[in-house]
């Protein structure tokens, strides 16, 4: 039987794949706070979608609940604004039913890592072909400022007036530990970097997790300034680039060297170490990815941004298709009549 869905896909008119970012703007007025980091992410997404050469009707954006989760209303694609924490599960069902689609999840640190944590880790483990964009602002904003799973230790919030006594998740480590095949971090203030990361995520076959540092001007303003502001960024961040040594500092005068398994900062100017001694990034090395992700909350090293890991593994939906094809090939009679009869039937004449 050919399903109506297969018919629709097969008989679809050929649509243009030449787009400009405005083709991905929905008529709905964007209602984030002025200065919110999400505006930049929306703009970068609209830009990269336009350049992917994928028909617009093939995109679906699925979200949960939170400021970030309003996102689907603002892109002119298919989409569901779901319920709190469930975006990844909704998207998983959609992707398995429709492997032809490019399915994106837009979520926040609370939506993704608190109420939705279970779905996140299992979709990552199964390598479901989703692009999960986690807008991390280290706070619950839509509910007005409570502590989130990524809020920093001792930080006072609405629900931790005496300071946060919970240790935060390190999202990149969590995603790696869950088996994600693409893990990256970028931030709202660097459109070019974000675009390059999003584009890679878009083209990744399998589960892609992108953490995006997103400034909340109202409830957690400046949370990432040290790593993202022009004046401090170079001293406190390091950009990961495949095949390149880890160099950072205002004058590119420092680097990261592996001392055993421990990343340490070395000076490139004191004559003791040269570029050749530095750690060279390899995004296909999963052991290295764990070491790099683990630099995140280490005060002795700069914070890493970029692609921690990008490896190829068959995606869940590919395996589903393959399993069905193999099972069909091995079954001589796949008629429903035979299925209904089962193994033990008898006839009364």
């Amino acid at each position, binding site marked *: 039987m050919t399903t109506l*869905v297969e018919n629709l896909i097969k008989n679809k008119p050929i649509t243009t794949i030449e787009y400009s970012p405005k083709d991905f703007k929905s008529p709905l007025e964007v209602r984030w706070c002025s200065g919110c980091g999400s505006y930049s992410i929306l703009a970068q997404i609209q830009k990269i979608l336009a350049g992917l050469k994928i028909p617009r009707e093939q995109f679906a954006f699925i979200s949960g609940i939170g400021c970030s989760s309003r996102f689907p209303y603002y892109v002119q694609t298919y989409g569901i604004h779901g*319920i709190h924490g469930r975006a990844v599960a909704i998207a998983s069902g959609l992707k398995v039913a429709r492997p032809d689609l490019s399915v994106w999840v837009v979520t926040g640190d609370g939506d993704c890592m608190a109420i939705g944590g279970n779905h996140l880790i299992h979709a990552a483990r199964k390598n479901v072909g989703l692009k999960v964009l986690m807008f991390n602002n280290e706070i619950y904003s839509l509910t007005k400022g409570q502590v989130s799973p990524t809020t920093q230790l001792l930080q006072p919030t609405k629900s931790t007036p005496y300071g946060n006594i919970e240790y935060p998740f390190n999202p990149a480590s969590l995603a790696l530990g869950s088996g994600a095949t693409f893990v990256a971090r970028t931030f709202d203030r660097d459109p070019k970097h974000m675009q390059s990361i999003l584009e890679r995520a878009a083209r990744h076959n399998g589960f892609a997790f992108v953490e995006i540092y997103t400034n909340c001007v109202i409830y957690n303003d400046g949370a990432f300034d040290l790593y993202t502001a022009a004046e401090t960024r170079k001293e406190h961040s390091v950009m990961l680039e495949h095949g390149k040594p880890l160099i950072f500092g205002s004058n590119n005068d420092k680097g990261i060297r592996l001392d055993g398994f421990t990343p340490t900062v070395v000076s490139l100017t004191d004559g003791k170490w040269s570029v050749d001694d530095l750690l060279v990034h390899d995004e296909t090395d999963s052991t290295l990815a764990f070491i790099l992700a683990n630099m995140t909350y280490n005060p002795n090293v700069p914070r890493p941004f970029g692609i921690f890991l990008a490896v190829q593994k068959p995606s869940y939906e590919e395996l589903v298709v393959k399993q069905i094809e193999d099972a069909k090939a091995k079954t001589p009679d796949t008629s429903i009549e035979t299925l209904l009869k089962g193994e033990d039937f008898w006839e009364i004449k």
Partner: protein
Amino acid sequence: MEREVIYLEDVTIRFAGDSGDGMQLTGSRFSDTSAFIGTDVSTFPDYPSEIRAPEGTLYGVSAYQIHFGSKGVYTPGDQIDVLVAMNPASLKVNLPYLRKRGILIVNTANFTEKNLKLAKYETNPLEDGSLKDYQLFKINFNEIVNELLRDSGLSPKQIERTKNIFALGLAYWLFDLPLSTTEDWIRKKFGKRPQIVEANLKVLRAGYEYGETNELFAVRYKIVPKKLEPGVYRNITGNEAVALALVVAANKAKLPLFLGSYPITPASEILHFISSYKPYGVLHMQMEDEIGGITSSIGAAYGGALAATSTSGPGLSLKVEALGLAVILELPLIVVDVQRAGPSTGMPTKMEQADLFLAMFGRHGEAPLPVLAASTPTDCFDMTLEAARIALKYMTPVILLTDGYLGQSSEEWKIPDFNSIPEIPVNFYTQPDYLPYKRDPITLARYWAIPGTPGLEHRIGGLEKEDITGIVSHDPLNHQRMVELRAEKIRRVQQDVPDAELWGYENADLLIIGWGSTYGSIKAAFDRLIEKGYKLAYVHLKYLNPFPKNLGSIIEKFDKILVPENNLGQLAFILQGTFMKPVIRYHKIQGRIFLSSEIENKILEVLKSK
């Protein structure tokens, strides 16, 4: 030797033993054979929640009951006519259900001091005269199979495990049933291990011959087969019937089938069956939790699949929020709740009907949806098809209620002709004038446009939306309008609900209203009383929301209405609220279905009361 043969219309037999004794297998083989000769069959697998409870204990007893015959087989039987007990614990647990003068076959091998103690017997019941009211047959199964298979090359453990097959052979002799279906099954099941095949065939025949040659048995029974309509038959459980119907429904709607599910007793078999249907192109995901089960299905439905999720009570509780989402998204979705005894974890392997309120009302906000209930294992097939038809036609989630008894019990099923099952018309919207919440004027269903359709890109979500356009809206009047529209749409499902059938007398002294798996017990009691000349009426409801159009006018006609339920009166409450008419409640909440005698007695009691 010549023996007296007694002809019977129906008989109930129960095989009982330790949960590792293979009683479920023995029972299901017996039920296949009895169905094969053309009797009606109703079965009841009764097993503990523990997988292998400690040997010999009372709580580790596993049993399988089969009621078969040519007349009145609506339930697995009130009382047992024949009990096969493999150890003291199974004797103790099941003896109360054996009728006086019933046949009791006991494997004496397991009546050791230790087992008697585990079963809390002070003295050995086989010797202390306490079983004098029954026809007791003491046979040492273990000794016989050991003797038979001494040179078979099987290990002592393997030999011991054939003792249930011996019991099966003996039971076949007792009822003059053929060995052939079980012989074929043994050959198919153990085909790759000829030694095991031979041993089991030998033991099966030995059980049969034991009856034939042993003078213990003076009487043999013969069940008069029923004249079944011509056709192809099989035995089927409710859970398998649901799974098959989902495949058929998807096929008839020309949609891919997607099941998102999470293991839970007693619904897991639906997941097992669906996952075994890969050659038929079925999609399924075993999700990380119940919420993932339903939300993945919602995603699949958005993508154009016939989506379903299967669960039991605790799982339905977890799915409640997502059901509200499905209601506001107005996407088709089938939720199958195989109800079990609650609250909380309750009694996972035991049936109950106490999720009706949850199905009807268990969502925040105004979130009505159609609720259907299957009445027999084979009806699970028909009602699943109905659920799919309604979900797709009205673009709504539908809850189908079955229960642990329906899900796991089996009965013989005349396999429907696939081609004569009507198509389920589905049309994806592809015209450029698409508005996500524009509705069909007759059904009020919104139109279904799926991703991949050029130019129809749209977003739907859990926020209230503007009528027709679907744009997010907090307008007060619009909200009221949308709430009313969603409710009116579910009311209109009534257009597709067949009229309730009234059995018995229009001017009866009493109307009985049942729903779900109470059907068998009520029908058996009802038939018996009608035969005795009582004037009764009976309506069995399969559509609980909305009710059939004619239900109100039926109810109006009767002064006395009895509503038996395996809950504290949930349907009774809804009927009273809907039709403003008092009804008499009758409940049983023991994890077991009603006995037909219980219903019969209650009816008589109600008839006598003023």
